[in-house]
């Protein structure tokens, strides 16, 4: 299938869905509207809501807040994950001691932490960042840990025979290997940074996309909820495209993984 046909078919799916939604929510079928506007709104209202947000400029503030929270959560969570992942992989005793606690913490649904973070860090951005960090940290941590532990024995021996010191092994062997594992989970960790931010906002905040959706829900403004969801989806797709570009640049040396996990 050529790229053009594929794109045409992809657009077709969206068009069919939107047209069905518009028709079923406005035109009665056998004297009955199948999608009552109160519960389902309709595409025209949703679209005009989005336009209104962008035209008045209110949306920019919320987008910026969510973006900022996501970035902070991603950076802090990744840094922590890399450091602890390296530490555990190089110190098996430490890893063994903390193993049950790491598993316990990872098994905990992070949403239940949101109220505690709000309590500790207030309703500003930091409680959302903290929630995102708890999500990102574990993904990066597990990948880096795996990456350091699964360095090929032969490559390691080769480094040693070439005369690498422990520090040079770190720089030329462990670090690139760990990094490649981390990058292969980049989509997931960036996604979770956004999830952390939005869920945090939804549960209690004064700004952000999550707040916008929550506000609309509070007044049964279904069009607003859908509009918020669409903006959020577009936002995530944009970020994901950015990640793909970064990934392609950084993982040129890898055979297929760059497009394998996409």
């Amino acid at each position, binding site marked *: 299938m050529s790229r053009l046909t594929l794109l045409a078919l992809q657009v077709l799916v969206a068009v069919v869905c939107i047209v069905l939604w518009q028709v079923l929510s406005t035109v009665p079928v056998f004297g009955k509207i199948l999608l009552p506007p109160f519960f389902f709104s309709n595409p025209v209202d949703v679209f005009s809501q989005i336009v209104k947000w962008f035209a008045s400029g209110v949306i920019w503030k919320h987008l910026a807040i969510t973006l900022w929270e996501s970035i902070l959560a991603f950076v802090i969570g990744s840094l922590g994950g890399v450091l602890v992942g390296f530490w555990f992989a190089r110190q098996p005793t430490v890893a063994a001691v903390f193993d049950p606690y790491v598993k316990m913490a990872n098994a905990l649904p992070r949403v239940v932490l949101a109220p505690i973070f709000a309590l500790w860090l207030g309703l500003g951005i930091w409680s959302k960042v903290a929630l995102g960090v708890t999500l990102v940290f574990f993904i990066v941590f597990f990948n880096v840990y795996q990456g350091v532990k699964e360095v090929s024995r*032969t490559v390691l021996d080769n480094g040693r025979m*070439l005369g690498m010191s422990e520090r040079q092994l770190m720089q*030329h*062997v462990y670090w690139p*290997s760990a990094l490649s594992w981390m990058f292969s989970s980049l989509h997931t960790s960036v996604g979770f940074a956004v999830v952390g931010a939005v869920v945090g906002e939804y549960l209690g905040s004064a700004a952000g996309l999550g707040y916008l959706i929550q506000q609309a829900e509070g007044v049964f403004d279904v069009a607003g909820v859908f509009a918020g969801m669409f903006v959020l989806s577009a936002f995530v797709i944009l970020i994901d495209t950015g990640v793909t570009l970064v990934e392609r640049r950084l993982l040129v*040396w890898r055979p297929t993984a760059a497009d394998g996990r996409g």
Partner: protein
Amino acid sequence: MTTPTAVALEDAKVAFRLADERIYTAVEKAHLTVAQGEFVAIVGPTGCGKSTLLNVAAGLLKPAAGSVKIFDRPLAGLNRDAGYLFQADALFPWKTALDNVAIGLEIKGTPRTEALPRAQKWLTSVGLGAFAGRYPHMLSGGQRKRVALAQVLIRDPKILLMDEPFGPLDAQTRQVMGNLLLDLWSADRKAVLFVTHDLEEAIALADRVVIMSAGPSSRIIGDWRVTLPRPRDIFEVRLDREFHALHREIWSVLKDEVMKGYAQSTQAAEAV
């Protein structure tokens, strides 16, 4: 009086502790020397511990008994005089061919601006001058071996240890690589310890062929001098009358060990 011996294993014994606490003796009382400028090939049936012996010479493994001397000095830790060519892919997958070769120098503290042109020169001499920017996964198996060879040789090690380096390659590529190796080797005649399971390859390349018995507790059971004239061409030398005579002679000894080794491996499989 004499020049020091490059590698000398004296009564080296290598043993491993198995998972069930039994001791598995891989190699027993191995006595092996490689003189400076000498190309020695070790041949033996699968699982006879020839790679183990090589790892002992490299310092990657410590012998349970006996001694290892490199240039007449006891070996402690890794063998810093040796370059090691591995059987499996050992290139750094995240470095380009050029960087993979240059790293050998950079580790020693050579500035990058100086290391890169020299790496490029080495890539050219293994026939990959045009592939400097490729990553290992973009190269064929034979090309990766060439990069690995350049990576080892750029450090100019006094001893070259090779663990079935051409094992994973197809027959033709192996011969081409053998000739390349001989070409590069004849330039400065390093001491070479070359492990292979291919007797023909061993005779074609080496000055001496050492045969090991089937494991466990395998021992060195034969040592032949190869007097075929150099420079040799791997394709040509196989047609030589002397080559055939030597091959027949060594094979008569090696064959029994190969059968023994095969019988043991099938028995072991049945026991499981």
